[in-house]
């Protein structure tokens, strides 16, 4: 499958990049696409899911790279590769849940290319959408691209394509913010406000805007964390369900518990109501059990991927329970011997 024609723009610095983006933003299916790692962009362009007039290559922009400590916490440049996140001693010490999640993305080769910003901005996925033009034509175009029907929820008008990034649930648990730049300035928003919950218009980012960095607050440093990912293979696969858990303990007491899910909704989703759960002073097992039920209740998996929706929902429950027990310091008794690569 050939790439269709586009103009490649390669600005040398952020200012020029934002100015270029402002000039050439475009809109709709022809909107400019950002090339960071390219691991999702290029296959999607070949499948004619994106048909941009311009592709903005930001890979040379130094300001977007690297992990830095600041007064407020830790900043990760949007171009920082997942490999770098995975191997950062700083992040491992302070934000282990993020490192764990980054470690499970795709495969080592793809993590060398794939970036933090790219994983946050990752297009939502659906078996009926991530297909070639010829394939999509054979069953009728869907809401997400070129059409107005939904194969997953026939008759429906909402797109259920699932958000399938691994790091955003970890970032949500850590209460991360992202910085969005445009030619008119930069602003910060909490990551949880970035996603819309609509599969076809899944993020709040205008065509002339660029995610420039992620900010992890100092207050989330030191949270223990775990990320559990449902996948068929131990490598390569996107998550079919994923759960990130982060917990702050002091003096043996659980002060804060955060749980977020991926791959079962059109947005990575925080589980709410956990503070009240902690207030009930339950045993660790009961907390884990209840948290699992709470997570499974808000998971809305549909037939957007392999494995049945009911199974994926059940795994949200099981994985949440396991991850919570894990971070509370009790390794769950399982014969789970899988490794992630």
């Amino acid at each position, binding site marked *: 499958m050939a790439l269709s024609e586009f103009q490649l723009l390669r600005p040398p610095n952020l200012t020029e990049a934002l100015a270029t983006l402002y000039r050439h933003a475009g809109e709709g299916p022809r909107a400019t696409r950002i090339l960071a790692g390219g691991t999702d962009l290029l296959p999607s362009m070949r499948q004619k899911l994106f048909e941009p007039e311009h592709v903005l290559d930001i890979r040379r922009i130094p300001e977007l790279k690297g992990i830095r400590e600041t007064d407020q916490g830790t900043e990760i440049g949007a171009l920082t590769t997942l490999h770098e996140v995975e191997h950062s001693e700083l992040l491992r010490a302070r934000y282990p849940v993020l490192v764990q999640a980054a470690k499970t993305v795709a495969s080592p080769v793809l993590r060398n290319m794939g970036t933090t910003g790219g994983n946050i901005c990752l297009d939502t996925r659906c078996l009926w959408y991530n297909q070639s033009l010829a394939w999509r*034509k054979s*069953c*009728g175009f869907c809401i997400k691209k070129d*059409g107005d029907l939904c*194969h997953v929820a026939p008759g429906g008008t909402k797109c259920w394509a699932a958000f399938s990034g691994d790091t955003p649930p970890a970032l949500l648990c850590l209460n991360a913010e992202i910085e969005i730049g445009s030619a008119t300035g930069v602003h910060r928003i909490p990551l949880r406000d970035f996603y819309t919950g609509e599969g076809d218009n899944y993020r709040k980012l205008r065509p002339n805007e660029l995610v420039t960095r992620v900010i992890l607050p100092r207050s989330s440093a030191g949270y223990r964390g775990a990320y559990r990912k449902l996948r068929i293979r131990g490598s390569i696969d996107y998550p079919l369900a994923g759960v990130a858990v982060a917990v702050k303990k002091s003096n043996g007491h659980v002060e804060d518990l955060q749980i977020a899910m991926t791959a079962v909704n059109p947005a990575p989703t925080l589980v709410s109501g956990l503070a009240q759960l902690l207030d009930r002073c339950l045993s660790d097992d009961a907390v884990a059990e209840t948290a699992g039920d709470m997570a499974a209740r808000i998971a809305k998996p*549909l037939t957007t991927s392999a494995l*049945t929706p*009911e199974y994926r929902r059940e795994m949200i429950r099981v994985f949440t329970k396991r991850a919570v027990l894990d971070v509370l310091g009790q390794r769950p008794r399982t014969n789970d011997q899988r490794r992630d690569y």
Partner: protein
Amino acid sequence: MKTTESRRNGTKALSSYARPDGRGARPTRPMTDFSIIGKPIAMVDAAGKTSGAGKYTDDLSLPGMLVGKILHSPHPHARIERIDTSKAEQLDGVIAVAIGADAPNTYGILPVGHDEHALAVDKVRYVGDNVACVAAEDEATAESALELIDVDYELLPAYFDPEDSMKTERDLIHDNKAHNLEKDYHHVFGDPEKGFAEADQIAEARYIANEVTHAAMEPHSTLASFELDSHTGKLGRLTVWSSTQVPYYLQHKLSLVLEMPMSQIRVIKPLVGGGFGGKSEVIPLEIIAAIAARKAKRPVKITYTREEVFWAHRGRPRTIIDLKTGVKNDGRITAVKARVVQDGGGYCSYGVVTILYSGALLGALYDIPNIQYDGYRVLTNKPACGAMRGHGTVNVRFAFESQLDELAARINLDRAEIRRRNLLQPPCITVNGLRVQSYGLPECIDKVVERSDWQNRKGKLPRGRGLGIACSHYVSGAANSIIRSDMPHSTVNIKIDRDGGVVVYTGASEIGQGSDTMTAQIAAEVLGCSLARVKVIAADTDLTPIDIGSYSSRVTFMAGNATLRAAQEVKKQIASAAAKKMVCSPEELVFRNDLVSRNGGAGTGHVGTGALARPVPAGFLGTNSSAHASVSGRVEGQILRGSLQQKRKDQGPKDSMSFEEAVVAAIDFHGALTGTGSYAPPPEARGGKHKGAGVGPSPAYSYSAQVAEVTVDEDTGEVTVHKVWAAHDCGRALNPVSVEGQIIGSVWMGMGQALTEEMIWKDGLLMNPGLLEYRSPSSVESPEVEPIIVESIDAEGPFGAKECSEGSLAATIPAIANAIYDAVGIRLHEAPFTPERVLAALRAKKNAKTLNLTEGVDPTAPARFREHGGAVWFKGKGAERVGRAPSPANGD
């Protein structure tokens, strides 16, 4: 052939092991002391593949070459009313657009199955069927042109489930196939009714194996180019480079479709990046490229996208197996009854052979006195299924070995022991007419039991961890070729010139399995020369004599025997000339280490040049162990006429000659030094007389036994395979490292089918036509595989060798199924054992709250194939370029 009654009904013992006419392919030397055979040897084509210098078809290009792109059908079943290519033709850069009318002749791999058009003529029969081909200056232009081709379709009712498809009387997929039934067979051997009556325990169940495909690393690719005829200026000879396992069949089918004599068509097979059966027949692009090249009058190359590879398919059909087995309390099988339904897809492909293998290979593994087999190969509106590693036997073997395990549990017999109780006693002819000679199965079982510490560990592992055993077998090539004729299945020519270089011309197709290396090894071993001296020219229909191809694990046995015979013929000529020089009889000469020597060669008179290719085995050169053999490639080692005459004057008769000297002597004596060998399976191995008896017989069968160790996560249903002990009887391992590679590869591929690989369908639409969603195992899931080579030394195989690349696969799936049972006590009757299926069975066993994990299909007792969820809204309507909201009637 004389036969005597055996202890059991049906199976006939053979009184004589070797072939009665004495024409067996026995090597002339004692079969233990080899210099090249049996040694671990790097593949002769390894350097090109590992360095990237090797050329696969897609690496080739020609001046003026165009890119071909194919328009595929968006409908599963439709009549083509009109095709308008005019807009596409007018696009700048488009040179030609080919459609079905450009080459309307039918073809198909089987003579009984000529039901394919390279490009659809009247109908399309699956989503992905081939409609038109654009030849353009570049890929993007060709793809744009595809969008400009207008096709009007009349939609027809489509059939996706074979059991539904069999019931239909109208809107047939092929007009001449009533009930969409490609072929059915009904075999009864022995007296199954009586057998079941004698049984103490009978198990009966339905098994379902879902559809898998080859997923070879290299996508199919073909480059076709016509020459201009020097006399007429018109298109003349055609050359086709293609990633194929069967260059001669391709030449034949091209000739049929293009209406050209075969002699005007040359097929060349460059390096092939894996086939596994997916390239063992003519794939549409191979003919389409030639049609497009003819129309464009320029070379055309087509390389499939991965999606197109899935549509071309020819993989293992999803299969329903209704199996019934009876055993006595001592474990002996009294009868087997199998009803097999294969979802064959829209065309015949190898289907008739597949459905026959599924029945025939119930025999020849165990001693089964009574067999009833009902096989149905059904047409559906899906991509055609064909041959895939372990062709026909794999899915039935999964069912059989699972059921045998269940029966062993019922009669409280060790799972390994029940298999031992049902061994054949070769030499014999099975109840369904298969001749079995070498039979390493008992040793295979012994070895895996021993290495896995079965006796101490089976049933004694912690909960969640288990061991399972299963056996399998496979043919070493089919005793009857697809095209019934008396022609040899393989022919090999050898030419040696004065440089001492041995050139072997073989039609056998190296597809990564080691065919070229095997050929070089056998030639070098027979001729006693170094491997470096041998050059293999393979799979080029202009240069190499006919070989029917790389499929059904036939190459080592058949092309190997042909190579052996060709080399023996050449050797005889060299020996007679050399004997004259040495004043001895040819029988006294030994060929070894690039020397021809008398009586083992105490080579006193020889003045050696060059270096040894490898250390001389102690004692081989007698007292003169410092003598050096010469190798090719050194100028001083090459003996041209003048220097030979000089040497002759200098030296009298001697005890040994260098290989070159002997070759030159032979050429001087005979005028030229060439040899030919061919192989056709012996009549005794060609099977019985019943309808369909042609499929299943083989000159020799390979045998496998495997033990798998797994853990099952009881909360998630995830299965992890930790280790597989895999013993395989390959007759003789000509190249042990290559045999081990084949065993490991088979286990790995079998594990894929057991756990993760599954083509997911929704109304004929393949939901996962890519390697991201069609999940072959990655290195992470790959268990440790301990390959164990068992050598039964077959009387007719080259140096005793048999099959080694397919037979192991079939044992892996039931070994894992049986290990899952051992670990957590669930018996899955549907493969693959995905976590949702495993968990559904576990929860049912525990009486846990019902969750609809498998959408209505009970994996322990499946009744039907499960479709993917969601809705293909076009059902009966037709897709538009821009979709409309589906009316409720269309939704599921």
